[in-house]
């Protein structure tokens, strides 16, 4: 009797000493979005290295690979429900984030999608947050750039019809471009369909001034290769999904000149204090991730890091790991000094106020010799 009591005491003490805060990480680590998935994971890992403890307890990252499938993302979410995590970081894309968000909202677990930009994601419920801006801003800014800055009168739009992000973004772009007086022609494709020759032949007589592509790199690289082979010399605009080394590496020199909107990198962040933090984080990142190439540091890394940072900040502010308290603290977060700028969730649906969208251009000599030029940054606060 006494012995078992002792053991029980020891067990309780032991579990107190071992107490850990579990945070789930649901990312696309293999499959079509593998490259950006691993970049995001690296961002989260470096942020974790900088802040490994909260409330005196170790933070343990539980990493789950959704294989870039909706089913995988749901399975990851269910696993996190069973493991009793405080919150989940990820997924990257809207198509994987939305199904996971539905599971986690029902279970009452916090989720911070690192870079889902479809407006629906955070409207699923009060436990769902995001780190990025939304596609209505991104689509409007890109369309304004195409019509005003590039002077496009006719725009061909390529959208991936089976992806929530691509479909939604193309819609916002189309709406704004039409409102500004441009003519548009939409062509659709689906995931893993890499032959674009027929669609390209369809836009030939339309003769667009600018081509907008709202999909991902797995199809984007072959798209660009075929576009140039088929004699189109027009400027191509992409979106944040093309902020992915798989794009220039897959298409090589054909990718030269591709301009896109994306999550802002340090140089484009207007707030000098935030830029300083981002630069310091960039330095840490290259120290910590040994084999990182210069092109591997992008907005996805910052988004991953800040998702971790705000969740830990919310746990600290709540003073406990009780999920409801942490959620309330997160929803009331104001001006948190993140590495991607100041983050405010107070008074929003879970989308941070005032994010910066960067404009970039690829300069590609070959698949191994390429760089990204930062053009300028625009705050979402400037867009009506």
């Amino acid at each position, binding site marked *: 009797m006494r012995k078992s009591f002792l053991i029980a005491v020891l067990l309780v003490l032991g579990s107190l000493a071992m107490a850990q805060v579990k945070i789930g990480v649901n990312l696309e*680590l*293999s*499959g*079509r979005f*593998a*490259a950006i998935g*691993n970049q995001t994971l690296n961002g989260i890992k470096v942020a974790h290295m900088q802040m490994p403890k909260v409330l005196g307890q170790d933070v343990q990252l539980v990493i789950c690979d959704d294989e870039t499938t909706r089913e995988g993302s749901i399975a990851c979410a269910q696993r996190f429900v069973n493991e009793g995590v405080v919150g989940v970081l990820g997924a990257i894309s809207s198509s994987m984030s939305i199904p996971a968000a539905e599971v986690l909202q029902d279970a009452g677990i916090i989720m911070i999608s690192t870079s889902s930009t479809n407006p629906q994601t955070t409207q699923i419920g009060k436990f769902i947050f995001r780190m990025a801006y939304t596609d209505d801003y991104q689509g409007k800014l890109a369309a304004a750039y195409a019509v005003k800055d590039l002077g496009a009168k006719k725009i061909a739009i390529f959208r991936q*019809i*089976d992806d929530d992000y691509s479909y939604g973004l193309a819609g916002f772009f189309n709406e704004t471009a039409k409102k500004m007086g441009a003519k548009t022609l939409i*062509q*659709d*494709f*689906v995931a*893993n*369909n*890499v*032959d674009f*020759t*027929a*669609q390209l*032949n*369809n836009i*030939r*007589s339309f003769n667009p001034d600018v081509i907008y592509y709202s999909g991902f*790199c*797995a199809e984007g*690289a*072959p798209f660009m*290769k075929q576009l*140039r*082979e*088929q*004699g189109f010399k027009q400027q191509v605009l992409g979106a944040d999904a093309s902020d992915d080394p*798989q794009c220039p*590496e*897959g*298409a*090589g020199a*054909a990718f030269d000149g591709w301009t896109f909107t994306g999550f802002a990198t340090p140089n484009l962040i207007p707030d000098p204090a935030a830029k300083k933090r981002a630069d310091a984080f960039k330095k840490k990142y290259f120290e910590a991730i040994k084999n990182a190439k210069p092109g591997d540091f992008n907005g996805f890394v910052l988004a991953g890091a800040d998702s971790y940072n705000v969740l830990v900040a919310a746990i600290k502010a709540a003073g406990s790991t009780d999920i409801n308290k942490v959620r309330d603290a997160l929803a009331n977060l104001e001006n948190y000094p993140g590495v991607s700028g100041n983050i405010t969730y107070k008074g929003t649906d879970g989308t941070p106020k005032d994010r910066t969208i960067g404009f970039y251009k690829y300069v590609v000599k*070959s*698949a191994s010799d390429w760089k990204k030029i930062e053009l300028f940054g625009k705050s979402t606060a400037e867009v009506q």
Partner: protein
Amino acid sequence: MTASKTTSRATLITIIITLLLVALLGWRFYSLGNYTLARATQDFLNALTLGSLYALIALGYTMVYGIIRLINFAHGDIFMLGSYLAFYAMALTPMHWAAALLVTILLGGTVLLVIRALFNLEEPKKTITLALLLFAGTFFLLAFRHMGWIEALLLSMLATGVAGVLLEAVAYRPLRGAPRESMLITAIAASFFLENLGQLLFGPRVRGFNAETILNKPLSFSIGHDTVYFTGILVMVPLITALLLFVLNTFVSRTKLGKAMRATAQDAEVAQMMGVNVNQVIALTFFIGSILAAAAGVMYSIRFGQIHPLMGLMPGIKAFTAAVIGGIGSLPGAVLGGLLLGMIEIYAVSLFPTLSAYRDVFAFVLLILIMLFRPSGLVGEDLTEKV
């Protein structure tokens, strides 16, 4: 694979398809504006390339099915393996001499053993000549210079062929007498295994496959005021497909091993009683099928410029569809089915521009229709089920 009957039926069906195509094109010209002769030519060339790629992959499916009535679902992943081997052959050469020697011994040795077993090379003299050629050739290719796409293609075809033989020996041979469902499930398992092995070995990331070849150079010619664009690969792929179809057909119908193959296809047990080494014939079929998959993989990668471990999935399903449409088990059928599928996909987008995302739907509706009206495919024999 009765040659004459199949060929005449193939001709008939080709004529019917061509007529249908002309009718569709006529309608396209008539109903929608802006369709010029140049755009029609462009559509046709695009369809021809895509169709020939499907045909090339479908040939491998149909060969294996013809011999052991197994739908080899791992064929798409063998295709992926072939692309990766060619990718690494180009990326890693020239190698350090020690590494090259090691790879030569491992690769050359395996290839030698497999080829010896496959082609009954008993005479020591022939074996030694082959061994010398193999080892010297591989070492020369690996050690001294940056490999071009043609050498990489040949090396990858050999190595992938051997991988196919190993796959058969490990995954399918132990199940030879088992029910066909078990074989089918094993094939699916082999496919998953190869996909995951690919992710583990090659990394999950999409890699650029940038073969510096004249095949990728944009070319063009003019019709009237418009220009038609194409690349060298567009000419190459149909030619290679035609050549391979011819070589395969000759091999199957003219050589002794081909005769053994046909005998095994008709009835493996009786063939064995007549002295045909059935295991050898089946291994040979996998060897040839995998060689075709590697060739298709490299062509596909040059065409689309990128590779990843799951790249075999979609083309695999499409090529399987093509093989079934053409009549699985028939070589000309596979080519016909592939070309037809390519045509459908391209013309579906061209004829219904607003439905461009649903091109696969058109392809699979065609599959359903053909299965309803001609269950054995366009040129397939009417198979009476053997139990």
